[in-house]
């Protein structure tokens, strides 16, 4: 046998985190996943904007354009798809047994999760950049203060992070890559379509308005719309009452999901 390195070098958590992050990102650049990451937001933009612009655009409560109204939902749906990729990846890892191998290696228990999350944030960034580019093409602009624009970007990424955490947990728990996408798509569509992202709450039947107004996607949309601003006052002012509900939703999500992650990552039967 070739000589085995006689001394074990010390391991570094930062190096391990980086190696595991690159491990997830690298294949996406050559197996076509990068292409779908770019294509998805373009597809959502075309699919929502073109058919709905004419007849929904009339009910957008005075925003300057339907593009301005629609932008938050495009960004959110694009981000959700990034979270599905995270779920797919963690499910694949646990079904292939590579999780098991990492657990028996000198790697801190949460490092693989941290690396998968970093890769998810990379996906979210692609989704955000491409959806903003699409928004720009159909006429969306940032009208607010620079701080508000930064807030818009951060809020989208934060939502992406919590969704990716959730997706990753679901993937790791059900260990079934094939079932992961069908499991996660319906909630995204239901919450996306039954929200204030496409049309105002007032256009929904009265019995469902309560749900539509208060569910998290609508709350995110209200906050993002306010942060993006508009040439008219219709986007709403940036205020604590608009920003706090999304933050509460996200905090609650993280508080529930993170401990479960720690449990799954450090569990020894």
């Amino acid at each position, binding site marked *: *046998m*070739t000589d*085995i*390195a*006689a*001394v*074990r*070098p*010390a*391991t*570094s958590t930062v*190096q*391990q985190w980086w*190696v*595991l992050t690159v*491990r997830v990102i*690298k*294949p996406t650049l050559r*197996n076509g996943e990068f292409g779908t990451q770019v294509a998805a937001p373009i597809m959502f933009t075309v699919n929502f904007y073109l058919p709905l612009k004419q007849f929904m655009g009339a009910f957008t409560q005075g925003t300057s354009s339907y593009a301005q109204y629609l932008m938050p939902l495009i960004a959110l749906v694009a981000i959700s798809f990034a979270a599905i990729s995270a779920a797919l990846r963690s499910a694949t890892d646990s079904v*292939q*047994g*590579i999780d*098991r*191998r990492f*657990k*028996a*290696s*000198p*790697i801190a228990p949460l490092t693989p999760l941290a690396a998968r999350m970093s890769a998810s944030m990379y996906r979210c960034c692609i989704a955000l950049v491409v959806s903003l580019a699409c928004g720009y093409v159909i006429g969306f602009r940032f009208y607010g203060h620079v701080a508000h624009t930064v807030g818009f970007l951060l809020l989208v990424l934060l939502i992406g992070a919590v969704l990716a955490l959730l997706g990753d947990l679901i993937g790791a728990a059900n260990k079934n890559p094939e079932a992961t996408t069908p499991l996660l798509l319906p909630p995204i569509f239901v919450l996306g379509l039954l929200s204030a992202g496409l049309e105002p709450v007032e256009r929904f039947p009265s019995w469902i308005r309560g749900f539509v107004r208060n569910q998290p996607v609508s709350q995110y949309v209200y906050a993002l719309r306010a942060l993006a601003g508009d040439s008219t006052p219709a986007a709403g002012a940036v205020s604590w009452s608009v920003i706090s509900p999304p933050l509460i939703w996200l905090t609650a999500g993280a508080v529930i999901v993170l401990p479960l992650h720690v449990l799954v990552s450090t569990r*020894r*039967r």
Partner: protein
Amino acid sequence: MPKRRMPNSDNAVVVDGVRKTFGSVVALADISFKVGRGEVLGLLGPNGAGKTTTVDILSTLTRPDRGHAEVAGHDVASDPAGVRRSIMLTGQQVAVDDMLTGRENLVMFGRLQGLKKSQARSRAKDLLDHFDLVDAADRSVGTYSGGMRRRIDIACGLVVRPEVVFLDEPTTGLDPRSRQSIWELVSDFKEAGIATLLTTQYLEEADALSDRIIVIDHGTIIAEGTADELKERTGATYCEIVPRDMKDLPAMAEALGSLLPEQNRAALTAGSDRIAMPAADGPNTLAEALYLLNAASIELVDIALRRPSLDDVFLALTSRENGDTSAMRVEPEESEGPSGRHRLERNGDTPVTRVEVGEPGDASGRHRLERNGDTSATRVEVGEPGDASGRHRLERTADTSATRSDAEVLP
């Protein structure tokens, strides 16, 4: 990293009174054993015996309910990080990243173990060379055959030197060449002073590779020793005599006189097709029997000294017909009689394992072992007439079947 002193330098693995239950299922009842430095210990047992649970506990993936286990001087419960730094684990399932190439996997695992990029690269190159994967180095592992996958899996565990290696059924479903290279690797580990714990269902593998064998069933160690000791335990060498004409059997029994103990004489029935008797003096017993039978003018087809094969040992020890483990010894002649039929059926996560031994009226005294697992049928036949050890035959058929199963693993 400071080099840690091993408290007990003779033992790479110490397992003491370990018990593990999953709900109401007792996976390990009370297991104790040791593996010395540079020793290869074979953990032999059927599906569901507790082999993988043992490996999981030693590689810190599972916590024992009770008892104490130490790997390379590190306690699995109080110092799991120390254990993880000292081991290499190859599970039943190949655990590498299918989306990366073989080389990328090796570099990744090298970097995870703390190697610098250049070190990891050159180590990857060496390992690809050694494991005969140079041509496939830059293809994604998802396209590899079963044997190649297993080789890259093991190679990824060798990017740095382990103190203790756990090989959990490493050759299941491999072609003969891959199997051979893994067998050679185990010898290399031994030479390098690396302790190896090998779990296997293949008897000949445990026989060929292990310094010592532990037979485990139902979470209990039911036998321990070298392959020779185990064979000894199941029954000493015996002499088997097959007459040309079965009608001569009573005359043979008569002629053998005091050589044939009462017990074996009583075991003869109308359906017997041979006489088996203890050969306390080995060749002398055989010579004497031959002399006596010649004098009585009885024509023979075969007379031979036989040692029980490891198959006999395994089946005798793990047979489910006898409920309690203490009664699991089976004398060789029992398996020749009409009632000497042993079946071992099990429903585990891999489908049915079915073993039949010594079918009545099977003149060749053939032992069959059929297995339907996820790796398709394995069929092993041992102990042909005139083949005193039955070993060669066993290995050959086992290899053939392995080739078949490997072909099915190909994507």
